[in-house]
């Protein structure tokens, strides 16, 4: 599967985990979205470093963009493929879901 397809699947899996599997419902809380807002700003900076400097490079056949590394446009945001934003969202959401879920279990079974 392409990075684009996998990235969309990653977001859907993260949301499903939050809402129906772990039932943490973080996607309904202000705290999660406020935290994500902060994180995504720094993701754009740090990922811009990784991709703008070509520390990481991508096969153009697997992303929306055509391989050109642009500040914005051609499927890129701050040099990174837009797919990276979806990957990052999935990782951050899954992390917060796991953290909160484990915290609840700890409280229920101390």
């Amino acid at each position: 599967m392409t990075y684009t397809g996998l990235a969309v699947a990653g977001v859907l899996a993260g949301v499903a985990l939050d809402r129906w599997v772990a039932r943490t419902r973080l996607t309904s809380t202000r705290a999660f979205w406020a935290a994500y807002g902060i994180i995504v700003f720094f993701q754009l900076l740090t990922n811009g470093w990784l991709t703008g400097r070509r520390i990481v490079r991508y096969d153009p056949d697997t992303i929306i963009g055509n391989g050109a590394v642009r500040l914005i446009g051609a499927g890129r945001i701050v040099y990174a493929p837009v797919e990276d934003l979806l990957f990052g969202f999935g990782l951050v959401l899954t992390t917060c879901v796991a953290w909160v879920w484990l915290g609840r279990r700890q409280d229920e079974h101390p």
Partner: protein
Amino acid sequence: MTLPHWSYVAMLVFCLVGTLPLVRVFHLDVLRQPRRLLLTIALAGLPFLGWDLYATHSHQWWFDRAQTLPWRVAGLPLEEIAFFVVIPLVSVLTFEAVRAVPSRGRHDREGDGRRERGPVA
């Protein structure tokens, strides 16, 4: 090794330098719960590391040898593996810092099922 080899490491250090002080500023108990933290990193980091291995091995992306350290594990630079420890850690720290902010944090804590910040070690 030359300075450019540390380019990816620099990004990870930046993430940690930016978030670890949150522990002190907001009196977070995240680092005092090592078991919960390690399990979180495992539960969230491992599936995404698996994705990364798949993507790297199927050549969807690759890493510049001139800007990463020479060591590779399963074809990934060490920094890329550390990424899946650092990003979950900084995510938890940011999330807990936001929840520690008065008023807004108190409201959202209800969604956690935790009434107060108990001494969970």
